[in-house]
């Protein structure tokens, strides 16, 4: 039950907020709700067994019997931290937007909670259609968030965001449906259960694009690639980030992008192992290009937020690289980097939002010398910058190191390309840092009429958890990796006949618990 | 093959009148009516063209009925006639209503809805 509660509690919160009569107590209420949700999600640890790669805390109920669609929630090491990341970021986001969002507050808070449900659901749903439902649902609140509370070109950005993501996901829907028909032969009835999908044995023909597994692979991969976003599909991201309000940017960068990489990890790679192997180079290539490209373009951005957005492209390139390295280092690093990116980029957006609140400008050239005026802000920004450029002892380093190691092990040329990202990452971040914080006071900073105030206690309270996480994850990665180890080992070692099982807890289960040994027969070899 | 057909067709075709003749006649009337709908701008003439089309259909029904020996075809015609009359009534009522409003029955004046 705890998973259901974690997934759907935010919706309940959203409803309560929508009908809450008192406008002045809305913010504390919502913040309290978010904290409750976070505490509840911590409860997962009580039942979570890090030693097994099995699906845990499974809840499965028949939903649409005709198509074998079920209400199917489950958690394993891959999704655990992403769920936690979501619930962790939400209260921070709410606290961070305490003063910046004043208009249509109810709608905003409700959107945040609906979004939370959608994101957690995406990470926990183990049924393709159920997953797709959350996947698409997440677009709507984010669409509103950008569109209503966003900047000047918000409408352009939000529609671009929506349509880009939609294009990818509808093809995935077609692929999902097709696979549901395929399950008929394996489990005897149509099924949308991911566990049944894993049992599929889809014929693969190397070198032929129009072959079944390849097409399905690309249908899934495209959806996730656009969300990630992978290099040629990334242009929605800077626009969305720049226009989104701070909380929107934080959630978008912090969690929503992870939905793409999570999808690759959970769906694309284990479902289509041969195709993933065969086309892995392509994804490593675009990942590597993304790293360099994102960094180079970030370097010349005049807008801080855009810079951070392009840095996201670069960082997500690492994750892609790690995932398609197909070894433990890459996969672990990729997963870890998802969390890191959530923390560091989320915090960066929060910081940018804080300064934007003060000056109403994000133009780098108008700043300068901030370090002398806002020391605390500078320190926080600097720490997060360090995390972002993966300085050791911060979280970013662990992820990036493992990814690069995995990549080097898998495919050296890509590691060489990716390693330039280490340098370029420092270049654009520090360059920006120099321009904004060092040097003489810029026109905004020196403005006598609007003296800038350093961070207040609320803002510090927002940033402190992030900074703690930065160092905690950087110094004690094993605290986190211990939980993911079993799952990732299982994923990497059994990639070509990946299966998940679980101990059934209720009667209405429609999935057999015994895994069929499809890997040993059939076309897979 | 084709030459022989051309040589023999005319006499047969003219002398032995059968179902195809009626069908061809009906189709000619039908397309004439269609052409009327497509070409004439007067709303009433368009409606008349539609009536012409319906009549052509009737002819085809009756011809089938006759040559297949099925009375149902005539029943169909009966129904079609009634409906055609009803259509005409409604159509003319509409045209009158439009005329009252626009003082015009040329359809080129009814192009407000477009795009």
């Amino acid at each position: 039950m705890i998973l259901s509660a974690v997934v759907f509690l935010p919706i309940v919160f959203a409803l309560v907020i929508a009908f809450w009569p008192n406008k002045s107590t809305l913010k504390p209420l919502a913040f309290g709700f978010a904290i409750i949700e976070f505490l509840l999600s911590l409860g997962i640890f009580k039942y979570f067994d890090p030693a097994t790669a099995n699906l845990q805390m499974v809840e499965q109920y028949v939903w649409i019997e005709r198509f074998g669609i079920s209400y199917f929630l489950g958690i394993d090491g891959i999704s655990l931290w992403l769920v936690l990341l979501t619930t962790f970021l939400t209260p921070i986001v709410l606290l961070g937007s305490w003063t910046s969002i004043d208009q249509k507050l109810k709608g905003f808070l409700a959107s945040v909670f609906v979004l939370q449900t959608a994101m957690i659901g995406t990470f926990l749903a183990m049924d393709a259609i159920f997953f797709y439902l959350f996947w698409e649902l997440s677009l709507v609140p984010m669409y509103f968030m950008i569109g209503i509370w966003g900047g000047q070109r918000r409408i352009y950005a939000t529609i671009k965001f929506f349509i880009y993501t939609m294009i990818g996901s509808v093809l995935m829907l077609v692929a999902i449906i097709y696979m549901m028909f395929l399950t008929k032969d394996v489990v005897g009835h149509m099924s949308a259960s991911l566990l049944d999908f894993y049992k599929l044995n889809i014929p693969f023909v190397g070198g032929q694009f129009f072959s079944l597994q390849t097409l399905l692979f690309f249908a899934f991969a495209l959806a996730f690639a656009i969300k990630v976003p992978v290099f040629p599909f990334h242009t929605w991201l800077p626009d969305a980030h720049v226009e989104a309000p701070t909380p929107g940017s934080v959630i978008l960068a912090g969690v929503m992008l992870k939905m793409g990489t999570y999808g690759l990890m959970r769906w694309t790679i284990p479902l289509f192992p041969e195709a993933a192997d065969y086309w892995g180079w392509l994804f490593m290539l675009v990942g590597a290009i993304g790293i360099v490209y994102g960094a180079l373009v970030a370097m010349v951005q005049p807008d801080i937020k855009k810079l951070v957005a392009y840095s996201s492209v670069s960082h997500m390139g690492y994750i892609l690289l790690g995932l398609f390295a197909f070894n433990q280092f890459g996969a672990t690093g990729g997963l870890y980097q998802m969390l890191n990116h959530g923390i560091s980029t989320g915090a960066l957006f929060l910081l940018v939002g804080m300064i934007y609140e003060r000056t109403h400008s994000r133009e780098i050239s108008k700043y300068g010398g901030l370090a002398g005026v806002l020391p605390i802000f500078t320190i926080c920004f600097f720490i997060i910058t360090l995390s972002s450029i993966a300085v050791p002892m911060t979280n970013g380093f662990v992820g990036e190191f493992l990814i690069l190691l995995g990549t080097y092990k898998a495919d050296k040329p890509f590691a060489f390309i990716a390693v330039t990202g280490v340098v370029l990452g420092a270049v654009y971040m520090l360059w920006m840092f120099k321009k904004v914080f060092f040097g003489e006071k810029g026109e905004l900073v020196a403005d006598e009429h609007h003296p800038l105030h350093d961070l207040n206690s609320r803002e510090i309270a927002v940033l402190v958890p992030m900074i703690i996480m930065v160092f905690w994850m950087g110094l004690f990665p094993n605290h986190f990796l211990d939980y993911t180890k079993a799952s990732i080992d299982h994923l990497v070692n059994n990639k070509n006949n990946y299966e998940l099982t679980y101990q059934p807890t209720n009667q209405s289960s429609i999935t057999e618990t015994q895994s069929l040994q499809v890997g040993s027969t059939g076309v897979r070899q | 093959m084709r030459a022989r057909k051309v040589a023999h067709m005319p006499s047969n075709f003219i002398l032995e009148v059968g179902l195809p003749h009626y069908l061809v006649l009906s189709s000619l009337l039908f397309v004439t009516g269609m052409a009327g709908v497509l070409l004439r701008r007067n709303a009433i003439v368009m409606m008349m063209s539609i009536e012409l089309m319906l009549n052509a259909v009737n002819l085809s029904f009756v011809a089938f009925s006759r040559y297949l020996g099925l009375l149902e075809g005539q029943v169909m015609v009966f129904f079609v006639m009634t409906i055609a009359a009803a259509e005409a009534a409604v159509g003319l009522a509409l045209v009158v209503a439009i005329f009252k409003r626009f003082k015009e029955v040329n359809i080129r004046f009814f192009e407000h809805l477009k795009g």
Partner: protein
Amino acid sequence: MNHQLLMSILILSPFVGFLINGFRYKKHSANLAGTIATAAAAISFLSAILLFIDLLGMPAESRKISVSFFDWITVADFKVKAGFLVDQISAVMILIVTGVGSLIHLFSVGYMHHDKGVAKYFAYLNLFLFNMLLLVLGDNLLVMFVGWEGVGLCSYLLIGFWFTDKEKAAAGMKAFITNRIGDAAFLLGMFVLFLTFGTLTFSEINALIPQSPETSWLGAITIGTLFLFIGATGKSAQIPLYVWLPDAMAGPTPVSALIHAATMVTAGVYMIIRLNPLFLMAPNTLMVIAIIGALTAVMAASIGLTQWDIKKVLAYSTVSQLGYMFLACGVGAFGAALFHLMTHAFFKALMFLGSGSVIHAMHEEQDIRKMGGLKKYLPITHFTFFLGWVAIIGMPPFAGFFSKDEILWMSFHSPLGHVGLWALGAIGATMTAFYMTRLMALTFWGKSRVPKDVHPHESPAVMTIPLIVLGILSVIGGWIGIPHVIGSILPGHPENIWEHWLSPVIKAVPNLGHAEASQEWLLMGVSVTLAAASAALAYHFYVQDPEKPKRFAAAMGKFYEVVYNKYFVDEGYFAWIINPLVRTSKNIWFYVDVNFIDKATYVLSDIVRGGGQFVRVLQNGNIQQYALYIAIGIVTTLAFVLMR
């Protein structure tokens, strides 16, 4: 005492200092902040001494204090512990780092007395110490890398300490980014080593190395060590990544002394020494290291001949001296490298602090053309600086002589060495003597060119005490490594303690032949004579006939211009790497993102919209047109279906 606790104190004491001063970042009291920081450094130094004493108490073969705190990263067979190791090498290093560090902290109290950000300054300094200790103590490459990046970070912070000056902030950034290039290679090196040996722990790597040297250029060890060496060139300012170090002089002078002379910049050398058995198995890499080291030594020295900024001269001197250390590593004389590292730490820290004292006295003036004759104003500074000077130009029996001589000798004598390397080294030494003498002459001797409004005065005691201590060390520091040929003629035949101490952890150069004492004497004599002669020449140039250098420079013409402008390396980097990169970035952003990908999307949407417009035109409101569509539809369908 418990080693773990001792180690914790050693490492964490500066960190605690950092935290305390960090949270007091707004405070202006230099005394309090300085006391805290210096105390933290001193506690660290004490622990280091205690550890060292423990180490001494152990039998020579198993001199090793290894402490592991927790498992840091564990993924599959990649297991890295937060483990620290004190052995003969790192023991020397921690003593240098904490000892010299403590002195420089103390010096800073005086030097930074009037600075508003003094608490911040000391926090950074302590943080640097912490990171440097991590670097030195780490028992595996990854922990070393933590410190490696950490010290780079602190260097960045301290170079850009006066961040309101754009130039200084830029210098910090330059340092960090240049270092990052090296770090990226360091990462790759680690990957190669991990995938080759399955571990990153020094002891395990050194245990797993193959028996015979690897001759191929593409062998894993060669490639791995080359990558590590590129990493070292970044940190230790070697060609081609040395450019950041002269700019790093933008930071406060004690920082230059600590970070950019004594400790951090030697990290690359230290890393190579740490992995000496591995490097020995990669003769190709060693060759590269030796050549790069020698070239750097000469090139930096030549630039040093022309500079007017007191700190820039010292900076190029540092680059040059680091070149010597690499030369030593490259010829397999790791012990000599570490030895020079240590003596260099003494005399270069001394000289930097001395220059700091001068600058302090001159009210932040760094141009030596505006000094001269300071000897009478700053007697202590002058005296200690003098000691540093004789040490660095390699005059026996000062510290620099022993270490540099050892390097030169080995570069000639070692099977990995070459007479050419020796020649380069000797040329470098000659130049060193020249520019150092020039520096002495222009600063302290001769006529005063001090502007009228500046009244130089001797520094307070907190600043002179460290100078004195370091001066003493510069004199006696070399005596622990007296070569055999000299030792044999000295009374009491002092042993080469240094070699003896290091022998368990430093592999000797294989196939080292027997050396003729006369040969060694000869080379020693040549280098000392050259140095002395060039020092005399410089004295003549800058004290006796100050017009000569100008004439000489004019005679050299273009060549002087090139050298004076540091061979235009910075400009070259800008012209060929940085500017093109920025331009490319702008272009790809503009052409790929904005004008291609987005345009393509727009074109797509325009096509869709165009389709909409087309349908809209067709939907012209005319019923007959609509009926025509129906007719066309029917005709097409009929034709399609019936004709098939």
